C-alpha cells in the first residue's frame, strides 16, 4: 500500500467533487444566491419602470444584471467561507497533504459553476421582468465567463480570510467591490458594445480588460492563498 500524497489532479478532482456534492445535497448556496439575485431584479424592475424611453431602458438593463451578478457572487463566496469556518472544515482542509492552492482552485471552480447557474436563471427571469433583449453574440459567453472568473478569484481569496472577522459580510463587500469594479467596468462596456451590434471590434478594449483581470486575479489567488493561511 502506497502512503504517498495524491497527485495534484486527483486532489483537485476530489475537492471539487466534494464542493459540488455538498451543494447538490443542501442547495443552500444556489438558493441564497439565486433568490438574492431575483429579488434585486424585482426591486430594480419596480424602481425603473418609469424610465422615459425603451432605448434608455434596454441600455440600462445589462448594467443592472451585472450588478445583480456581482452581489450574488459576494453572497455566495461569503456564505461558502462562513459555512466551512463554522464546521471547522477550513482548518481541516489546510492539514491535508497537498498544496493549499488546490483548495483555492477547487473553491474557485465550484463557485464558477454556481454563479453560472445563477446567471442563466437571472437572464431567464429578466426576459419577461425587465424586457431583456439577449445579445445574439457568441462573444457574450466569453464576457460572462471572464467576468465570473474576475469577480470570484479575489472573492474566494478574501472571503477565506475575512470569515473570522467581526462583521465579515460587510467587510468582504467593502474589500471586494473596489477590486472587482474594474471587472464590472469591462463587463458592462463589452455587453453594451455587443448589444449595440459593434461586434468584436467594438468590444475589444473591454474584452482585453476582462482578459487581464481574468488571468491576473486567479494567478494572484493561487500564489497568495497558501501564504494567507500558513501558520
Amino acid at each position, binding site marked *: 500500500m502506497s502512503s504517498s500524497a495524491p497527485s495534484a489532479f486527483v486532489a483537485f478532482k476530489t475537492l471539487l467533487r466534494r464542493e459540488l456534492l455538498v451543494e447538490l445535497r443542501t442547495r443552500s448556496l444556489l438558493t441564497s444566491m439565486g433568490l438574492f439575485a431575483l429579488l434585486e431584479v424585482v426591486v430594480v424592475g419596480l424602481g425603473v419602470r418609469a424610465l422615459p424611453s425603451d432605448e434608455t431602458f434596454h441600455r440600462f438593463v445589462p448594467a443592472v444584471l451585472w450588478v445583480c451578478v456581482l452581489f450574488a457572487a459576494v453572497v455566495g463566496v461569503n456564505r461558502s467561507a462562513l459555512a466551512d469556518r463554522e464546521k471547522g472544515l477550513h482548518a481541516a482542509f489546510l492539514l491535508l497533504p497537498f498544496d493549499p492552492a488546490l483548495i483555492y482552485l477547487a473553491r474557485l471552480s465550484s463557485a464558477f459553476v454556481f454563479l453560472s447557474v445563477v446567471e442563466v436563471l437571472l437572464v431567464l427571469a429578466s426576459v419577461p421582468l425587465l424586457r431583456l433583449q439577449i445579445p445574439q453574440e457568441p462573444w457574450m459567453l466569453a464576457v460572462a465567463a471572464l467576468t465570473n472568473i474576475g469577480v470570484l478569484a479575489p472573492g474566494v481569496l*478574501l472571503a477565506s480570510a*475575512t470569515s*473570522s472577522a467581526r462583521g465579515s459580510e460587510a467587510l468582504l463587500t467593502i474589500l471586494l467591490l473596489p*477590486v472587482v469594479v*474594474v471587472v464590472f467596468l469591462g463587463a458592462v462596456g463589452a455587453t453594451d458594445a455587443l448589444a449595440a451590434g459593434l461586434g468584436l471590434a467594438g468590444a475589444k478594449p473591454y474584452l482585453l*480588460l476582462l482578459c487581464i483581470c481574468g488571468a491576473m486575479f486567479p494567478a494572484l489567488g493561487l500564489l497568495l492563498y497558501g*501564504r494567507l493561511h500558513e501558520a
Partner: protein
Amino acid sequence: MKDLGTSSMVTIILAVLALLGAEAALWLSYFYAPVQITAGALFVVSPTPGVNTLNLYESHRIFFIHLPSAYATALCCGLCLVGGVMHLLSRSEKWDALTVSASEVGLLAGAITLLTGSFWADYAWGTGRIGSGWNWEPRLTTMLILWLAFAALLALRGAMPNVQARMKLTAVYGILVAPLYPLVQKAIEIGQVSHPRSFSDLLSAPEIGTTKQVATLGLLLAFGAAVALRYSANRLSFQLQKERAA
C-alpha cells in the same frame, strides 16, 4: 528600535526639503507660469472633439497640485505592493507598517487628485456648478475606485482582532490593490476621452514645464515625508501594543 531613530531623521530631512519644494512650487505656479490663452490643442479637454471653444486662463494652475498628487497616489500603490510582498516573505511588522502608511497617504493624495480634478472639470467640462464636470469616464471612475480601495484597506484593520491574520490580510490586499493604478493609466484608452492623455498635450509653454517639474518634486517630497512620519507612528503604536500585551 535603532531603525526607528533613522526613520525619524529621514522624516525630518524629507519634511524640510518638502517645505522648500512646496514654497518654490507655489511661487513658480503663481508668478512664473504664464496665463494660458492659446487655444492651440485645447480640443483634447473639450467634451466635443474638434471644438476649440475653451481657454484655460488661470485654471491650469491647479494642475501643479493635481498631477503631483496623482503621481503620489501611484507611488503609494507601489509601496503597498512592496510592503505586501515583503511582509508575506519576511513576516516582519515593519513591512506591514509600510503598507498601512502608504495606504493612509494614498488616501490623502487620491482625495487631493479627485478634488482638484473635479474642481477643474466643473469649469472645463461642466457648467461651473459643483459636480457638473464629473462624467463617469473610465479614468475618473478608476481613480475613485483606487481611493475606495485605500479606504477599504484601512477599514479592514479595525475589523480583524487577530494581529497576525490582520497583517497577512493587509499584505494580500495591498498586493491586490496595486494593479489598479496601471489600470487607471490605461483606462484613458477605453471609452470616452475627455481627460487629457498627458500634460504636454495640454500646455506647451517652457515656463509651465519647469513649474510642473519643481511642483512634482516638491509635492512628492511632501508626500514622502508624510509616509515616513506615518511609518514611524505606526511602528511606535505596534511597539506600544506589544509592550502592553506583554
